[in-house]
């Protein structure tokens, strides 16, 4: 270190479920480097100042989706947010709209349950003989660049849950299935290999799913991967409505 270190005042939410009734704020003054991300500051506190601080992180390159936190009240991936964007002091809290496990770590079990409801995997109507033949000949299902392009954007989600923290509907109705889960379900509905759209559309027409969205667009504003979950949710609304209308006039296969 050649230059004199700049100092930063960091306010961090602390919560120990064994001792605390409610989360409290702890303040640290630490030296920072000009090229640090917010995560580097938290790691510095953990390594050099206070080893009792708990936070989640892994890849440091905006891929793993584990270091999402509220930075000055906004949901951010801390590994992708430069400290240089903030001057003097910064406030770091656990992601909003989730129960706190400890300090900056939140409980994402509720999200995982919502996630499973949209069946985020390729569903086939049934394994057909020709599927097996195609598999044997080509090795896999072929897909054109256009077919891939139809859903690729919505498949880039890293489940960082910033969108759930930003969503005003999640804040109001915690049972709302939420942006990332709907975007992922919609991603499989758009996949040319998938045949499960009907099942997912039935889920989407249930309580607390796509129609609970009031299109505030906050999810897309905070998404670090430009997935645009708000677009996915609103396309999913139309898809669910068209599927419903089709069900009125066309007999359901195998129903």
């Amino acid at each position, binding site marked *: 270190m050649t230059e004199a270190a700049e100092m930063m005042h960091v306010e961090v939410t602390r919560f120990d479920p064994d001792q605390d009734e409610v989360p409290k704020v702890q303040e640290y003054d630490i030296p920072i480097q000009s090229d640090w991300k917010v995560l580097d500051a938290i790691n510095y506190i953990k390594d050099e100042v206070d080893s009792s601080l708990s936070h989640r992180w892994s890849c440091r390159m905006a891929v793993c989706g584990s270091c999402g936190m509220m930075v000055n009240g906004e949901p951010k991936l801390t590994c992708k947010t430069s400290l240089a964007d903030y001057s003097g002091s910064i406030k770091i809290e656990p992601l909003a709209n989730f129960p706190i496990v400890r300090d900056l770590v939140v409980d994402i079990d509720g999200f995982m349950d919502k996630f499973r409801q949209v069946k985020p995997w390729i569903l086939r109507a049934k394994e057909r003989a020709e599927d097996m033949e195609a598999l044997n000949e080509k090795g896999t299902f072929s897909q054109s660049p256009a077919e891939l392009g139809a859903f690729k954007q919505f498949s880039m989600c890293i489940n960082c849950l910033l969108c759930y923290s930003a969503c005003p509907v999640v804040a109001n109705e915690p049972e709302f299935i939420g942006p990332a889960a709907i975007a992922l379900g919609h991603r499989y509905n758009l996949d040319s290999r998938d045949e499960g759209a009907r099942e997912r559309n039935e889920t989407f027409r249930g*309580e607390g799913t796509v*129609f609970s969205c009031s299109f505030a667009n906050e999810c897309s504003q905070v998404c670090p991967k430009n997935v645009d979950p708000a677009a996915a949710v609103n396309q999913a609304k139309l898809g669910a*409505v068209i599927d419903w209308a089709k069900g009125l006039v066309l007999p359901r296969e195998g129903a």
Partner: protein
Amino acid sequence: MKHLLLILEPVIWLLFGAGLALGTMLLTGFVLVVGLAIPMGIVPPEALNYERAYGLASSFIGRVILLALIALPLWKGAHHVRSLALDFGGAERDGAVGSLLYLAAAGVSVLGIIAVVGL
């Protein structure tokens, strides 16, 4: 109540979406013509004299457009106000508030149908 609204949600959302799109475009066009183009003399005032306006409004297409202009923005408004009420008032009253708003929109829509048919 809430359950009925959930079943009707696709219909309500379609009316809301149509109201959002059509209302925004048609009303903008209406304001442009009546509020700006005619007063500024871009369109001659005779373009909307009584006979012409009545002829347009009482044609089949005219009646459909009039009904869309009357009814669809009401559904859009009802849906928006329901969302607003949900944000402020919470989920318990959502069924009652939603039903009331949609009933109002449906009631005025029926009046709109009667008016347009009797034109």
